[in-house]
């Protein structure tokens, strides 16, 4: 056996061989000990120990690979030390794939207690051997109590080496010590990480651990704890007195009384306010319990404090919303009994003064409304659906228009336990809207009546023509019959004219009556060109009277739109009379009105009414659609604004453009009947 290399400083040569070996062992272990003791962290310790190993065994490399696990897919080299000239080509902190022959080595070393001679007891992986130029190697698995085992290995590259039993024993012992050291340092590192995590958790949740010593009144807490209490953070502990000095004066007596109570063994769960140095008030929630010492005396109170200001603020806002919302808000359980109801809800539904909580919904809404509306909708809500409806409903105190929403509430579990009800009483709003609509209908009707009044004398003329003819023909007919002998041929002819003129009169009256109808707008298919021709017939008399030549260019043949015939006719009459008014001052031969119809983009209908009148300037153009704006001395100035609102209600648009020549063209579009 080759003699152990003894350190020069150790006079071992005079000792018996066994004692020499023992001394060598102890001295080297001492070096390892010192390396472990002096290291402050895991990396330093591994590095120092591997350096000592290199020097003890006078080998070329010392490595730790991790994990030393036959089932691993990869491994890392957390630490490696080499003699100059034998640098390890493998990097640390890189994951290397674990090849089958590497896993074979791991399997061998983990199934053996002590070290194994690699290349002798177990084959060295060929690739590793070649890459690292290894002649001999000694390796073992070491087991720290934290995490997976490490492979602790030394390489000899310069020559083939026989590892002595003493060397192997020393290597094994160093391995054990290394495992212990790794255990300690890794645990310490994990602990530090936990502490950091705790501090971080405390910081994020505004929760802190607090410990108060009963005997001394000392209060120990974390950085976050000091922060929560509004105290300087650069220290380890504070006192109950100091904490109390920060507490809101109104809460101070309560807190010191409870602190005394806690000393007697009561679990505490209290809230109090802290005033921070900048005057800010924070709400604190404190919970804790008494811990007794071995002799049963109260020793410490352990607990947590939490800054619940944000929560409180949210709760306050929620309560404010709940209490002062103009909408009725209530929570109803699956038994249809009220859990909560805000003042607006109770007011809206005329709940008796004792409040709705505990009452069944049917008692508040009445059986009919509950059974027909509330219950079916709530059943859907309890099945998970968000339900909303708005309608007139009959409640015990009358007929109201309510907008209601039911939202499923899952308080703690996935199971729906209640429904959130939001009710708005829109009765007044709806009545006002109804009134508005009625007023609008009436205004449109009035405008039509005004329009009719404007063309009234023309219409009277138109009706009077056939009436005059009827009277004359009637008289003539009677006289032809009374003649001796009766002239039957003339009488027949006269009676035929009576019938024709009667029909003609009734057509005219019919057109006027249509325009005078004041009823609700009716949506029906309207043939556009036919509507234009009817309307023109209605105003033809007026146009004649005003010496206006009207011409048409109707190219929307057969085109149908859906709308209110009367209102659309009103628009056409307005536009035609508007054009006629604009031409009053022109010489008779220049008064020309053109009405066109066509199919425009998106198959919309386009109607144009063009006059040759005085036109308008840019200022007027912006205002002609304003109510009560009129350039004329007569008229309400409502024609164009009402026309525009009618067209817009039909989904179309109405606008005016100045002509290239004299006059103005008014255009309007109507969306095509989607059914046709």
């Amino acid at each position, binding site marked *: 056996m080759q003699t152990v290399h003894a350190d020069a400083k150790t006079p071992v040569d005079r000792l018996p061989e066994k004692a020499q070996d023992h001394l060598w062992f102890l001295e080297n272990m001492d070096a390892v000990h010192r390396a472990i003791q002096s290291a402050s962290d895991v990396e330093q310790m591994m590095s120092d120990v591997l350096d000592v190993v290199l020097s003890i065994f006078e080998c070329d490399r010392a490595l730790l690979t991790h994990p030393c696990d036959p089932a691993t897919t990869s491994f890392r080299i957390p630490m490696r030390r080499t003699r100059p000239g034998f640098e390890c080509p493998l990097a640390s902190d890189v994951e290397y794939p674990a090849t089958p022959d590497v896993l074979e080595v791991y399997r061998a070393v983990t199934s053996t207690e002590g070290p194994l001679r690699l290349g002798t007891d177990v084959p060295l992986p060929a690739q590793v051997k070649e890459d690292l130029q290894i002649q001999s190697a000694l390796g073992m698995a070491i087991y720290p109590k934290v995490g997976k085992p490490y492979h602790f290995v030394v390489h000899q590259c310069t020559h083939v080496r026989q590892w002595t039993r003493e060397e192997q024993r020393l290597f094994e012992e160093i391995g054990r010590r290394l495992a212990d050291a790794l255990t300690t340092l890794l645990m310490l590192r994990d602990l530090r990480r936990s502490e950091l995590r705790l501090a971080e958790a405390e910081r994020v949740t505004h929760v802190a651990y607090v410990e108060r010593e009963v005997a001394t009144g000392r209060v120990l807490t974390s950085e976050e704890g000091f922060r929560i209490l509004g105290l300087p953070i650069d220290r380890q502990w504070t006192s109950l007195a100091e904490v109390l000095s920060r507490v809101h004066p109104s809460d101070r007596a309560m807190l010191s009384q409870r602190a005394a109570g806690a000393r007697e063994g009561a679990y505490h769960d209290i809230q109090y306010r802290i005033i921070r140095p900048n005057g800010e008030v924070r709400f604190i929630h404190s919970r804790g319990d008494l811990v007794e010492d071995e002799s049963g005396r109260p020793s410490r109170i352990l607990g947590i404090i939490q800054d619940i200001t944000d929560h409180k603020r949210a709760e306050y806002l929620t309560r404010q919303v709940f209490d002062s919302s103009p909408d009725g808000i209530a929570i109803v359980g699956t038994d249809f009994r009220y859990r909560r109801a805000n003042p607006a809800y109770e007011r809206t539904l005329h709940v008796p003064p004792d409040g709705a909580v505990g009452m069944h919904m049917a008692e508040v809404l009445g059986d009919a409304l509950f059974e027909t509306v509330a219950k079916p909708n709530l059943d859907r809500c309890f099945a998970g659906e968000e339900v909303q409806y708005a309608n007139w409903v009959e409640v015990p105190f009358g007929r109201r228009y309510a907008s209601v929403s039911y939202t499923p509430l899952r308080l703690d579990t996935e199971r729906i336990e209640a429904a959130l009800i939001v009710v708005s009483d829109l009765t007044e709003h709806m009545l006002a809207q109804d009134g508005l609509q009625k007023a609008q209908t009436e205004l449109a009707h009035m405008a039509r009546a005004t329009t009719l009044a404007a063309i009234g004398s023309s219409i009277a003329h138109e009706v009077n023509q056939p009436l*005059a003819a*009827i009277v004359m*023909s009637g*008289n003539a007919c009677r*006289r032809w019959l009374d003649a001796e002998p009766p002239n039957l041929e003339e009488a027949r002819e006269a009676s035929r004219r009576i019938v024709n003129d009667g029909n003609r009169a009734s057509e005219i009256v019919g057109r006027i009556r249509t325009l005078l109808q004041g009823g609700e707008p009716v949506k029906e298919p309207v043939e556009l060109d036919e509507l234009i021709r009817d309307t023109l017939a209605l105003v033809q008399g007026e146009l004649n009277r005003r010496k206006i030549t009207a011409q048409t260019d109707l190219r929307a043949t057969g085109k149908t739109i859906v709308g209110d015939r009367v209102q659309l006719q009103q628009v056409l009459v307005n536009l035609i009379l508007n054009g006629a008014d604009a031409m009053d001052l022109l010489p008779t031969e220049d008064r020309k009105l053109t009405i066109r119809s066509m199919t425009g983009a998106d198959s919309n209908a386009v109607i144009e009414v063009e006059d040759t009148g005085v036109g308008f300037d840019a200022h007027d153009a912006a205002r002609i659609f304003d109510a009560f704006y009129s350039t004329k001395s007569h008229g309400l100035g409502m024609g164009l604004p009402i026309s525009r609102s009618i067209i817009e209600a039909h989904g179309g648009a109405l606008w005016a453009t100045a002509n290239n020549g004299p006059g103005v063209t008014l255009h309007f579009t109507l969306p095509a009947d989607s059914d046709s």
Partner: protein
Amino acid sequence: MADGLVLVVDDDASVRESLKSFIRSVGLRCEAFSAPDELLASELPEASACVVLDVEFPGRSGLDLPAQLQQAGIEIPIVYITGHGTIPMSVRAMKAGAIEFLTKPFSEQELLDAVMQALERDQTARATRSEREASLARFATLTPREREVFARVVAGRMNKEIAAELGTVEQTIKQHRGRVMHKLGVNSVAELVRFAERMTPSA
């Protein structure tokens, strides 16, 4: 009056035809026109007639017709009919010599009264006109000296005065005067004065 002719002018065919039928049913003759220009262009018969005229025509007014008729030297009474009469319109029509201004629809009596009145007036006017024409024809046979004597007799001058004025003797004037009365077919000074009145167009 049974042979009276009524000229209807109305642009409304129904009104035109019914008026024509009615007028014929009461035994009057009727011709109908759709515009005043048609009437002006037509040949008017020498019978007592009147016009039943609508006020409103496309592009023009029936109220302009009297002036046009007068220009053409035609005197004919007009009854206006209108679908929507206004007071200024009726005033203007009446000033222009309208017989009546009727608003449609009118009763048969209203129309008949107006038409008969118009025809009567036309007949009277025609009679007056023919008398005047006869008088003028007789007057045309007088010599210039006889006309001078006629004018002075009608003015109420005595023979002596006339003779002095014309520079002759009373006897000569007496002879002229006798010839004038003979030529004009009158027997007294009073008749002579009436003849003079007839001859002057009634203004």
